[in-house]
């Protein structure tokens, strides 16, 4: 059971200047190891990848669903789409969109980063509809490449703001498969490989409990309590027995991120 008693341990505060979305993006960037291959999406995943390439993972290969392999991100020139010229700058290879996904199916891609409108206790992601599929309250943009990324990459990383309305026991619609209904249900459905490995939020780093495959709090972001995380989650979380805190965002991480985004530091 989740223990909500406050730790007597002194909380190390988060970097005083870092916004929640910046904390999340930087935490995601730290997961990326040098020499690996990342299937990224537009926005925070791409920024996280670019930070990693400028720090611990200079030989990280980043690719996008538009067919771009081995791209660089131009500071201040973030693409709005995975299918545009800003997303192709510095590419080592340009191939067809279908070929990119078929490479994913072949098993070449170590990580796949996706976002979520809703994510549930088993890491299933919804970006399709809020409400009923045939009569939705809100029609969302859809999977884009996310269903394929979640089905095919070796490790899916879900990057999303930690909010109770997003973290639900069961998503309204499984756009991108996680561990489905837990246990071996993902494998039983024919997805023999991959699955969500990490969920990165502005409040915590989460993984999935072996066996049950339910989401588990692995580490808290600096300055965040377990009570805050539980309060922002709409289902019962498993808590890792060795729960600790992630190190605060550093000045250098924040500087690199803002340089890439062309953000406040430039205008301050």
């Amino acid at each position, binding site marked *: 059971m989740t223990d909500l008693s406050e730790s007597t341990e002194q909380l190390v505060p988060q970097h005083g200047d870092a916004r929640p979305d910046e904390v999340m993006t930087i935490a995601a960037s730290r997961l990326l190891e040098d020499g690996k291959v990342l299937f990224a999406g537009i926005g925070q995943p791409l920024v996280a990848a670019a930070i990693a390439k400028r720090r611990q993972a200079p030989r990280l290969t980043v690719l996008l669903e538009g067919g771009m392999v081995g791209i660089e991100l131009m500071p201040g020139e973030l693409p709005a789409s995975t299918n545009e010229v800003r997303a192709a700058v510095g590419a080592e290879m340009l191939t*067809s969109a279908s070929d990119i996904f078929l490479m994913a199916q072949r098993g070449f891609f170590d990580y796949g980063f996706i976002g979520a409108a809703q994510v549930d206790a088993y890491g299933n992601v919804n970006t399709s509809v809020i409400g009923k599929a045939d009569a939705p309250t809100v029609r969302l943009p859809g999977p884009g490449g996310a269903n394929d990324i979640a089905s095919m990459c070796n490790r899916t990383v879900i990057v999303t703001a930690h909010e109770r309305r997003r973290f639900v026991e069961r998503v309204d619609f499984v756009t991108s498969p996680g561990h489905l209904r837990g246990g071996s249900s993902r494998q039983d459905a024919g997805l023999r490989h991959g699955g969500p490995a990490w969920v990165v939020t502005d409040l915590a780093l989460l993984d999935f409990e072996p066996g049950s495959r339910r989401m588990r709090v692995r580490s808290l972001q600096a300055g965040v309590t377990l009570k805050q995380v539980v309060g922002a989650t709409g289902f019962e979380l498993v808590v890792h027995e060795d729960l600790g805190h992630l190190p605060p965002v550093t000045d250098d991480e924040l500087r690199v991120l803002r340089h890439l985004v062309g953000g406040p530091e430039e205008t301050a």
Partner: protein
Amino acid sequence: MTGRLATLDADAARTDLESWSRSAEDKLVPTAEAVAALVPDGALVGVGGTNHARTPMALLIEVLRQGRRGLTLARPLSCFEAELFIATGAADRVMTSWVGIGHGWGLATVLRHCVEKGLVAYEEWSHLGIGLRYKAGAMGLPFLPTVSMLGSDIDSSLDLAKVRCPYTGQLLNAVPSLNPDVALLHVQRADRQGNAQIDGYELMDADVALAARRLIISAEEIVPTEVLKMDPARTVIPSFAVDAVVHQPYGAYPHECYGHYEADLAEFAEYVRSVKADGIDGARAYVDRLLGFADHDAYVAAAGSERLAALRRTAEEMMPR
């Protein structure tokens, strides 16, 4: 409405092809003529490019101008061109993995309205799902197996058939082929016979071209075949797959064409402003404005030479060097 219902028998598409002449004659025609001859009411239209890259905007606007009805649009990722079709009732069905403009532009208002009110049929696929539909169509096969969509609600909504590998027993989704009634593509260069080259990211366009039962290509440049022969590996669409060729500089405008011009975000903002102000009526008003121009050249010219020069300059600056 399920994926199976949308399947066109790949073998029937082959029979159709055998009875259809596409010899290597001069196929260069005016836009209006190509669309009048090859895009009928009720057609399933394969739209080339993806999101706001190499969208065949000149051809699509001509389809709107000619008042087609009952179309289905199929595209891996759709941008606001899909909204122009559903807002005006030109299309009543969309087959795609995504609709929107891009990061930072918010949800697609008109699509939301039409889907939430049940005014259009929306068929959601994975990105590779669309890609394999075209690839199967291009290969002359009725389906292709994949792990894409397995276990998801996309799978159950489409009611996809499953296959087991006859050798290993592995469970796979059987994605049905798609041979669009007509496909519209925009490319960087083509010859008058329809041999076409794409620079940069090809997306799914070579498969779309080979799968399509009828194909119109618009090109930034029409070049002598000798020019294509200098770099034949870049030719991804053979003349024998093409029915009509249209010469249209800025043919993807206001979307981008790799190496030629980047997307005109000011024009995107114009559309979004119109929709924010008046919802679906704003989208209709935007289409009325488009159709108020005599042709695509006039629409492009209205952007002004300074703005166009800036779009070209950025596109050039982003090229490999």
